[in-house]
């Protein structure tokens, strides 16, 4: 049952932390303690299991029987799951420590830390649950926590809207996810993942269920076309971006596909959809990242693109490559976001156009950033190189046929991935150059010309940017190690068997991506070199606007989905008010009116009343005669 501690401790401490009163000063301490202890406990348990457990750890108990469906409440941690849990726990711990310093002036730190704990626990629940219902619970808790955390800074004008958008867009996918899970469970009669994987589904049911689950995966992992929430989620605090992007939320979808991969392996249609989705996402994210001016949005779009690599690897039949890339991506993306947070903390703005020249003032941050970007672009021997190489190899291998996915899907994924290597190198170089090289654009000629923070914590940017304080620096440095070296773990046999990874073999196939990488980086550097201090993205010309807006997919969604739904809601409201309500109220007013008329009739003068009575008597007599047939 020790495996239950991995999600259990952060969840419990997060729930306790929600009870803490928000406040500044001394009151932050218990909240910070709870958050860090939760993440650290999860990390320790995971590490212990990794070191001392030699076979998958399982624990489950019967929970409830719904009709013919047995629901269990169980945990299982294979080696792969433990590695993912390790990544989650490490990132969560770094984020918790980092947040203590990053949110030093935020009075609502206590609920924030508790929510981060909850978020981490939910992700760990998704990772370790051996039961689809448990996965579903963790999945939903993550959705709720992401809403709370993205909208944490309520004073930002875009934060609440971004939170609502993230919640709604992922919710659209979650509806499909819920239906798919229900389909799988009902058909198999159990919710245990092991039993589900062994169950023999008919092709139609399986394809339908997997496509529905893919909708949920697309929502959570920010795959086309449900990726639009992710760049907007940058409105949340930077550590939250690190948490969401690196290890938790976006990884959940990939991990779920990995977990259910035996089922996907039986359905070429689902894999084809996944592959096309991945290819589109890779290119879309990479191209959109090229033109962003917001540091965090560059990273966000790069996340979209990298998640596309993972799903692409899954589509071409290599879940091991996907998981490997997930782990390395968790390391370098967390590093990048935390370092970006340090940059933002120092400069006081998100905009690349206002940075520059930071290299001398923030060497630690610069080198960490450089390592992260190198890993992102796939510079050997950094982590990203090995994992991306694995993905490319798997895709190239799949183009020869023999995998479940159709060959054309493998071609699409492979070409998209190769092209994205070029683009990734380009925008990574651009990011590094714009932020850290050249002259400083952080200040106007008269010193700092913008202020940081809000009413109660406003300060001007320091004249000289400097490296962040220790609580922020150490997590960055800690994460720089796996970002640089995790790729070499592919040579470690234990790690390889855990992930079922192939032996790394460097052959001539790696030349093509390296050439593309050099071309991309060189192009960016050459543009920068030609006109120093000018954003290389200027060279994109008119396409820049399209890229910067993410191919206007937001507008498209607004036109195609949001507005029709709003119009429909208005129609429904109007129907409710004018028809249903009006019918009820009309009955009331009508009755009152009729009562008024009757009251008036009761107040008529005597003679009129007499006329009415006698006329009524005459009429009754006439009716009686008519129907009685007397006359």
């Amino acid at each position, binding site marked *: 049952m020790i495996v239950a501690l991995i999600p259990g401790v952060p969840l419990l401490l997060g729930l306790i932390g929600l009870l803490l009163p928000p406040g500044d000063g001394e009151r932050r301490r218990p909240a910070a303690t709870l958050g860090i202890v939760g993440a650290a406990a999860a990390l320790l348990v995971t590490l212990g299991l990794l070191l001392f457990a030699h076979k998958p750890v399982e624990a489950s108990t019967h929970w409830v029987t719904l009709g013919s469906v047995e629901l269990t409440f169980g945990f299982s941690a294979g080696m792969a799951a433990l590695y993912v849990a390790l990544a989650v726990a490490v990132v969560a711990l770094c984020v918790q420590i980092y947040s203590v310093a990053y949110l030093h002036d935020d009075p609502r730190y206590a609920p924030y830390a508790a929510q981060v704990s909850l978020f981490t626990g939910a992700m760990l629940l998704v990772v370790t649950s051996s039961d689809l219902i448990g996965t579903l619970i963790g999945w939903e808790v993550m959705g709720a926590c992401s809403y709370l955390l993205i909208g944490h800074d309520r004073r930002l004008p875009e934060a609440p809207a971004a939170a609502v958008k993230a919640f709604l867009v992922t919710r659209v996918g979650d509806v499909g996810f819920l239906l798919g899970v229900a389909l799988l469970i009902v058909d198999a009669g159990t919710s245990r993942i092991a039993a589900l994987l062994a169950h023999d589904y008919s092709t139609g049911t399986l394809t339908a269920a997997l496509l529905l689950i893919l909708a949920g995966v697309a929502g959570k992992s920010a795959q086309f076309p449900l990726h639009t929430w992710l760049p907007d989620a940058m409105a949340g605090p930077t550590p939250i971006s690190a948490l969401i992007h690196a290890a938790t939320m976006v990884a959940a979808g990939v991990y779920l596909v990995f977990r259910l991969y035996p089922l996907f392996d039986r359905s070429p249609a689902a894999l084809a959809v996944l592959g096309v989705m991945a290819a589109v996402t890779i290119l879309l994210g990479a191209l959109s990242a090229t033109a962003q001016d917001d540091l965090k949005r560059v990273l966000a779009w790069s996340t979209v693109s990298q998640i596309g690599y993972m799903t692409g690897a899954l589509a071409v039949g290599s879940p091991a490559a996907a998981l490997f890339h997930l782990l390395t991506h968790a390391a370098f993306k967390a590093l990048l976001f935390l370092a970006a947070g340090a940059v933002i903390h120092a400069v006081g703005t998100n905009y690349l156009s206002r940075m520059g020249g930071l290299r001398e003032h923030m060497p630690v941050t610069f080198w960490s950033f450089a390592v992260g970007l190198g890993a992102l672009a796939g510079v050997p021997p950094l982590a990203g190189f090995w994992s991306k190489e694995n993905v490319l190899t798997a895709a190239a291998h799949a183009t020869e046929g023999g995998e479940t996915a159709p060959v054309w899907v493998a071609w699409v994924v492979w070409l998209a991935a190769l092209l994205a290597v070029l683009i990734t190198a380009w925008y990574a170089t651009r990011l590094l150059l714009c932020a850290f090289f050249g002259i400083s654009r952080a200040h106007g000629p008269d010193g700092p010309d913008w202020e940081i923070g809000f009413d109660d914590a406003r300060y001007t940017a320091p004249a000289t940017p400097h490296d962040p304080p220790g609580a922020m620096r150490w997590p960055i440095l800690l994460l720089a190690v796996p970002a640089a070296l995790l790729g070499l773990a592919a040579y470690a046999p234990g790690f390889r068997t855990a992930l079922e990874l192939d032996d790394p073999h460097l052959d001539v196939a790696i030349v093509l991506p390296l050439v593309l990488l050099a071309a991309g980086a060189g192009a960016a550097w050459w543009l920068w070199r030609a006109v120093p201090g000018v954003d290389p993205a200027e060279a994109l010309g008119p396409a820049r606007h399209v890229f910067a807006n993410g191919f206007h997919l937001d507008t498209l969604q607004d036109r195609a989905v949001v507005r029709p739904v709003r119009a429909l809601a208005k129609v429904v409201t109007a129907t409710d008010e004018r028809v249903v309500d009006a019918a009820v109220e009309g009955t009331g007013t009508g009755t009152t009116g009729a009562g008024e008329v009757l009251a008036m009739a009761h*107040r*008529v*003068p*005597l*003679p009129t009343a*007499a*006329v009415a009575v*006698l006329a009524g008597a005459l009429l009754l007599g006439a009716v009686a005669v008519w129907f009685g047939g007397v006359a």
Partner: protein
Amino acid sequence: MHAVIPYVIAALLFALGVYGVLRRRNAILVLMAVELMLNAVNLILVAADASIKSTLSGVQPEAWAYPAPEPKAGAIFALFVIVIAAAEVGVGLAIVLQYYRLRRAVVLDEVPLHEHEEQEAR
């Protein structure tokens, strides 16, 4: 004798009474018209007394009735109606006179029926 003659006379008298009740504004004249209607009913009772002999034969008398009522009870009913009419006129005229004292008028159209409500509303 042809019974239809008093019957039709009674019907016409009744119609005149109805007309008078509806037409007249003066309360006393309305009372007079009511008398006409009552007399029409009386006439019908008496005419029925004279014309319908056999209708009531064979009807079991009530236990309290001794001697058993004869079929020809129309005249008695006419007497009762006359008594009731006298009572009605007495009370009706008292009301009219009282109203006249209060309002100096006996016009039915102007009798305020919802004066009480208006006072409460004020």
